[in-house]
């Protein structure tokens, strides 16, 4: 009986090694449905999945939304056409049958601590994806640890976050796979219109900017604003190329896709100071060694100061006196977060590191099993 079990175990391990060798295993990504609204975090997951698919691996997007809208409207067809399954309904019942094998990988975003717990006994390799460690703090139960959940690996998106996570979880393997900005966001040689784009999750912020601006500066009541919200990337990028100025408010972000997109499109960025620094938005003062926010954008702490800043920027722009330094510094960031760099990192971390290590783990187990079998014989 023990020999049969051992033989069975050897067969299973050999199958899993075989799955890895011939790429027949699957990498699953848990996703959330943003109901058609663009999301930098979600686009990151889809881009990772798509890149892995392009490298010849099986991927599958898992969701639990009964009326799943998906990403075609804002991200594009090629991402929407990745395999999708609804693993459970919104009231918790099983939906599409998913059989997880030991050779499979499941990438679980930081907000899905419930999934981490549910998969505790699953044979697959579980990896947590942390794009915003604040969400991890919110979703993880107080008493839970990754060791309990049999999770050893975290992928995060910035070195800044990696350092923070390493201080929380010194025994975890923490990897960085950078985000990327779509090439659809690019600058133009064409002259711009005096339109001010506003990007903010909170509608109230928009009112708090536009109305006081017109009240305080009636001589600028002709200046037009354009809210960028819920539109495909192509439309967003056109608006960013068209408009001279973009206001961005997202204090809670740990990265800032919209900010980089606006700068890449050559729009002057007026940005709310974030609560946390990330890899691209600070510089280190050479003399003092202190971190300070980059000069690639114009920062404000309080929305109440925006009308005055905006009036000054508008006038300066109409007079062609915007310092060229702002544009130069913004474009210095263009070489960061490209699709090519991200694709290399995905291959290096997911395939060369994690998949390869998984295979080596199986191979070690196989050797042990075979040695034990030999000894018993």
């Amino acid at each position: 009986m023990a020999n049969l079990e051992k033989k069975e175990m050897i067969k299973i391990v050999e199958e899993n090694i075989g799955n890895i060798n011939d790429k027949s295993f699957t990498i699953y990504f848990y996703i959330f449905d943003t109901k058609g609204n663009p999301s930098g975090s979600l686009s990151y997951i889809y881009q990772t999945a798509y890149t892995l698919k392009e490298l010849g691996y099986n991927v599958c997007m898992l969701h639990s939304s009964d009326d799943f809208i998906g990403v075609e409207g804002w991200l594009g067809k090629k991402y929407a056409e990745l395999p999708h399954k609804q693993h459970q309904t919104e009231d918790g019942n099983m939906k599409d049958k998913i059989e997880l094998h030991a050779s499979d990988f499941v990438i679980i975003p930081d907000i899905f601590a419930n999934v981490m717990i549910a998969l505790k006994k699953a044979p697959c390799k579980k990896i947590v994806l942390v794009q915003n460690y604040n969400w991890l703090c919110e979703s993880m139960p107080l008493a839970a640890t990754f060791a309990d959940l049999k999770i050893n690996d975290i992928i995060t998106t910035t070195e800044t976050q990696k350092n923070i996570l390493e201080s929380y979880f010194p025994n975890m393997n923490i990897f960085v796979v950078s985000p990327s900005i779509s090439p659809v966001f690019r600058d133009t040689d064409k002259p711009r219109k005096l339109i001010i784009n506003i990007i903010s999750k909170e509608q109230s912020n928009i009112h708090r900017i536009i109305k006081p601006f017109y009240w305080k500066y009636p001589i600028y009541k002709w200046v037009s604003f354009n809210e960028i919200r819920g539109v495909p990337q192509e439309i967003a990028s056109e608006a960013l190329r068209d408009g001279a100025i973009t206001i961005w408010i997202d204090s809670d972000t740990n990265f800032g896709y919209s900010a980089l997109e606006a700068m890449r499109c050559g729009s002057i960025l007026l940005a709310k100071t974030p609560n946390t620094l990330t890899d691209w938005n600070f510089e280190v003062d050479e003399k003092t060694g202190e971190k300070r926010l980059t000069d690639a954008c114009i920062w404000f702490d309080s929305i109440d100061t925006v009308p005055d800043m905006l009036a000054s920027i508008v006038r300066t722009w109409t007079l062609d006196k915007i310092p060229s330094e702002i544009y130069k510094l913004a474009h210095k960031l263009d070489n960061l977060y490209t699709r090519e760099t991200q694709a290399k990192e995905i291959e290096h971390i997911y395939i060369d590191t994690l998949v390869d290590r998984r295979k080596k783990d199986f191979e070690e187990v196989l050797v042990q099993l075979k040695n034990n079998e030999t000894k018993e014989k």
Partner: protein
Amino acid sequence: MKDLTVIVPVHEYNDNTEKHLNRAVNSFIEVDTDKDSELLFIGPKTVITELKKKYDGKNRKFVENEKSDFCSQINIAVDSCRKYFSILEFDDVYLPTWFKNVKSYSEVEDKASIFLPLTEIVVEGKEDEPIGYVNEAALSTSFSEELGYLDIESLLNYMNFNTTGGVFKTEDFIELGKLKEPIKLSFWYEFLLRAVRNGKKVYVIPKIGYKHTLCREGSLSETYNKTMKPEESDFWIELAQKDYLFKKTRDISHYLYEE
């Protein structure tokens, strides 16, 4: 801009004119970064003689004309202009990037016959504190159907437009019938109405191109401001709104304002 002639109408030449004109011409030199635009002075013979002594040179033209009213000066000068022309009043200045902006916007808005700058309204001594803008309405999304372009309806309802510093396509200006000399005060407004009615596109570039000080001492606007009653200025506006339907200059003596 090698296809551009800048018309400088000068009806008298004295110490005051000379001081302002120097400034204006220097602004032209600064804005003409390619050094290929042409400067055309027009005025009475005595004035032109003095101006030739000071400003003659490459890409300079001088046209003698004894008629002293602004419309006549422009109408005569355009016959000697290149493909595009602009008007630089002796007491105004171009901003250094204006021609560069005209070139870049005209490449995109290539159907336009007239390019107007956004203009700040400032009072002398407080040039850094604009009190308003001119031509700004065309840049508002709630103004005309096509952002930046004037249309008839908007022009009839909103008159705050000024052509100072504007760049005109010469051929279209002549085809439209030039300026109507009998019309005082609102001759540019009438011209814009006529241009748009006849299918010409007028585009406002969202850049300050020109500094025009309102009611500078001795200026035409100052004269009108001092001597013209409100009902008289209303009269000229209303006349413009009737007369733009006609390309040719008509006899308007029967309309003329009498006290």
